[in-house]
């Protein structure tokens, strides 16, 4: 049966042109964005699903507690991280003291340590049975209850732990902001007679405010995302509550509703950040970068600066790293066995797969956006990048609900068709974990890749096309070779993020499929803190890689040297929320 219109069009010796109104690239971008957005939308949809008594029960009992605890966490960590982050950034960019160049990158080191690892470490170090209190008792002859000692496993303890590993976000963004403004305004204010203190409070701080606000927003999102620390410390924040409601009480719907409330909370946070930013970025009047004269600190001042910069590095990295190393040395021979290697391999496989997928999907989406930038594709990619702001526990809930439904359908179908039950092929397998990683970390690779595509001008695309290459050929021959360094960076960043990830992995991993992070979590839960050191140390060592990448970017972006691509990528990565470009 042939339709006349088809026959007609075939008769025309038509040139092989076609309308590219909706091509494969755009379609891919849309489908991917929709997939990535699905879990978040599922969770949000649960706001409207009545779950009867459970929700009433939660709302009247634990919910107020979750909210106040999470708020206190945010206030504490936000304040701590901004004071340390802004202070150290100011000191290393505008003052000169012994060790300044070392601190420029060393201040980033705590980023390498996941919050739960630092929490386990300090608990082991400071707890009743830990070396410090034991020594104290030995020296004084006191016994239990004779002396007051701060409890690490408490809300203030959690605040300190999270502050120690999260302040680098504020440091990084504040430092970049101070560097940017240094030449154009600070010199002028100096010639106008501003002392260092007035320079800071009247000029530098207001100008850097948007960057600092963005840094604090990132810190608060990470705070809300944290699961390992609060769970271990018994601090009842939202994420701990979601986990308990789901795993402990077996109420996924109620967990989803908690997750929805948390997601709305984060949306409010992002909105607030954008409001405080006012009418966008502060515009700098000149783009000249030059070595700027720093305040030379001597004697007591230099010592104070050294202390202010040294303490965060010492407490946030050096001490925990040494403790971990010692414990790993002691317990390693016992812990590092076939099972450990299997876990390491699982971690590596998951992280590698996630990195490859994240980079490939992000590259295709970014390229699709480039081929045809419309309002729809822009929004689609923006939604896809939203996942980074959403805690892993929430994403886990949002991934599991649709996937188990899909599994049910698939099984119904196969049973009806062939009388075969295939089992939980999606929700019970590695697919679910990888899906959750994509939702959460796609923004990392996407932002890095979009920034690096800036190296390829649109005219280069056009030139390749007029020279006879199709879009795919152009991508392979022009974009990939030019951006390959940045693609590798993006892959490494996703790899490391996945290595460190705990809540989503914990909730979604296949049965008996453990990773290093899971092992550290389980050993710590069994109060075998010294035994947890080996997997923890492995995670920290991998976590140092992005710190090195950022350090290199920082070294290259010193005033006087031109702002490099690496710096822009680092910025893009830090700009994980993508609010900057909204």
């Amino acid at each position, binding site marked *: 049966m042939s339709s006349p219109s088809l026959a007609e069009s075939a008769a025309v010796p*038509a040139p092989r042109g076609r309308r590219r109104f909706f091509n494969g690239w755009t379609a891919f971008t849309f489908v991917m964005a929709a997939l990535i957005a699905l879990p978040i939308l599922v969770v949000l949809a649960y706001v409207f699903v009545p779950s009867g008594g459970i929700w009433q029960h939660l709302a009247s009992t634990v919910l107020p507690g979750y909210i106040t605890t999470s708020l206190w966490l945010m206030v504490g960590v936000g304040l701590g991280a901004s004071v340390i982050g802004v202070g150290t950034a100011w000191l290393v960019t505008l003052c000169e003291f012994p060790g300044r160049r070392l601190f420029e990158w060393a201040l980033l080191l705590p980023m390498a340590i996941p919050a739960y690892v630092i929490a386990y470490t300090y608990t082991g170090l400071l707890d009743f049975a830990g070396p410090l209190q034991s020594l104290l008792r030995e020296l004084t002859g006191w016994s239990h209850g004779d002396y007051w000692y701060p409890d690490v496993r408490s809300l203030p303890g959690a605040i300190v732990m999270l502050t120690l590993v999260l302040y680098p976000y504020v440091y990084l963004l504040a430092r970049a902001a101070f560097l940017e403004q240094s030449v154009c305004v600070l010199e002028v204010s100096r010639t106008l007679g501003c002392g260092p203190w007035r320079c800071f409070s009247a000029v530098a701080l207001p100008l850097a405010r948007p960057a600092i606000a963005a840094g604090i927003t990132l810190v608060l999102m990470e705070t809300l995302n944290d699961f390992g620390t609060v769970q271990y410390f018994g601090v009842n924040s939202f994420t701990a509550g979601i986990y308990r409601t789901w795993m402990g009480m077996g109420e996924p719907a109620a967990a989803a509703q908690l997750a929805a409330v948390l997601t709305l909370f984060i949306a409010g946070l992002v909105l607030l950040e954008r409001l405080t930013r006012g009418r966008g970025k502060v515009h700098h009047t000149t783009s000249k970068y030059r070595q700027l004269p720093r305040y030379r600190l001597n004697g007591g001042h230099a010592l104070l600066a050294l202390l202010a910069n040294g303490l965060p590095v010492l407490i946030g990295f050096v001490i925990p790293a040494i403790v971990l190393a010692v414990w790993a040395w002691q317990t390693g021979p016992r812990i590092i066995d076939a099972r450990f290697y299997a876990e390491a391999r699982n971690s590596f496989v998951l992280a590698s797969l996630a990195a490859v997928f994240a980079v490939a999907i992000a590259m295709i989406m970014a390229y699709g956006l480039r081929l045809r930038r419309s309002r729809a594709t822009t929004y689609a990619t923006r939604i896809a990048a939203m996942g980074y702001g959403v805690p892993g526990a929430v994403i886990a809930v949002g991934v599991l609900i649709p996937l188990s439904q899909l599994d049910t359908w698939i099984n119904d179908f196969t049973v009806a068709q062939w009388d075969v039950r295939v089992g939980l092929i999606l929700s019970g397998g590695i697919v679910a974990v990888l899906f959750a990683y994509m939702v959460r970390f796609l923004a990392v690779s996407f932002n890095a890749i979009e920034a690096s595509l800036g190296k390829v001008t649109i005219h280069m695309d*056009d030139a390749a096309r*007029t020279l006879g290459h199709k879009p795919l050929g152009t991508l392979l021959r022009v974009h990939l070779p030019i951006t390959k360094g940045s693609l590798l960076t993006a892959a490494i960043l996703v790899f490391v993020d996945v290595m460190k990830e705990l809540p989503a992995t914990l909730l979604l991993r296949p049965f008996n499929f453990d990773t290093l992070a899971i092992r550290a979590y389980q050993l710590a839960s069994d109060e075998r803190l010294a035994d947890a050191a080996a997997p923890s140390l492995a995670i920290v060592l991998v976590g140092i890689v992005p710190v090195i990448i950022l350090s290199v970017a920082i070294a290259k972006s010193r005033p006087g040297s031109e702002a490099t691509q690496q710096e822009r990528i680092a910025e893009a990565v830090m700009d994980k929320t993508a609010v900057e470009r909204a």
Partner: protein
Amino acid sequence: MSSDDVLRLEGVSHAFGDTRVLDDVNIDAKPGELLCLLGPSGCGKTTALRLAAGIEELQQGRITLAGQTVAAPGLHVPPERRSVGMVFQDYALFPHLSVMRNVQFGLSDLDAAARRKRAGEALEQVGMSAYGDSFPHMLSGGQQQRVALARALAPQPRVLLLDEPFSGLDSNLRAHIRDETLHVVKDSGTTTLIVTHDPEEAMYMADRIVVMNEGRVEQIAIPDKLYCEPANAFVTTFFSSINRLEGRVRGGMVATPFGLVPAPNLAEGARAEVLMRPEALRVTPLEGALPDGAAAAHVLDARMLRRASFIHLCFGAFEGQHLHFHSRVPGRYMPQTGDHVAVTLERAQTFVFPMTEKGA
């Protein structure tokens, strides 16, 4: 338009959002012809070029290449299947490829040996044979421009498109590269479309010039004709600074201080503008009585500009208009400020057009 046109744009209109950038544009290029699209920035000339290349998708009209329709509503042959060579304003050389590989980029249909041979010939054509192994960032602006030209010519395209190819070069180098490019393009025999905003560049290079303004084609003609027989006030003023006078048509003539100027094809009583090029005003020292057809003026200032003298003249009031005209006199002629002079008008460089709404 004849059927052997290599490139033809028929009734092409284009809009970005609510902004109309091309309005019923018709352009045709004959085999081997060098055509310049000339106009101020924002006149749509680059859009026309991008439509011809297929980088921009056509909205309305039709584009044919060597008689084959490549773009029409519902039809879009992508750039990679159009066989067009393009040179971009920023050259857009691929930074990760050597000069040789850049030039070979468009030759993937050939085998390796043939590709190398053809690329070598193209580099030879532009005098860059010695730089095959260099990378783009090692080259000067002029050298990059030559490589871009070689890369565009290497696949032997049906049409060569150049988008403001000299605007990135400083003015001394520009004249040199312009001349070089002209000869390379002409020797290759490729039909060429050059977009430029520089009238001198267009006059220097083009076989024919397409003058564009606000998305419309104002006039298509050979350079000489454009200068001497401009179709309207816009074309007239675009090629040089101009002396302008308003008047009304009476008996087929418009009155000027230099006597009556014929206003053919204008309605009786219509408002008209008289446009006089600076070189049309002949200045002589005023001795004794004013000659017939001359106007008296005094000199405000005189300057040497390149090889001509540029004289500011004040004519006092004429029919309610205060007239301040400029005259360009070849060679050195430097009257003193305040000198009284006699000025006559050469009719060949004087044009009368109906008053446009904008001019009023």
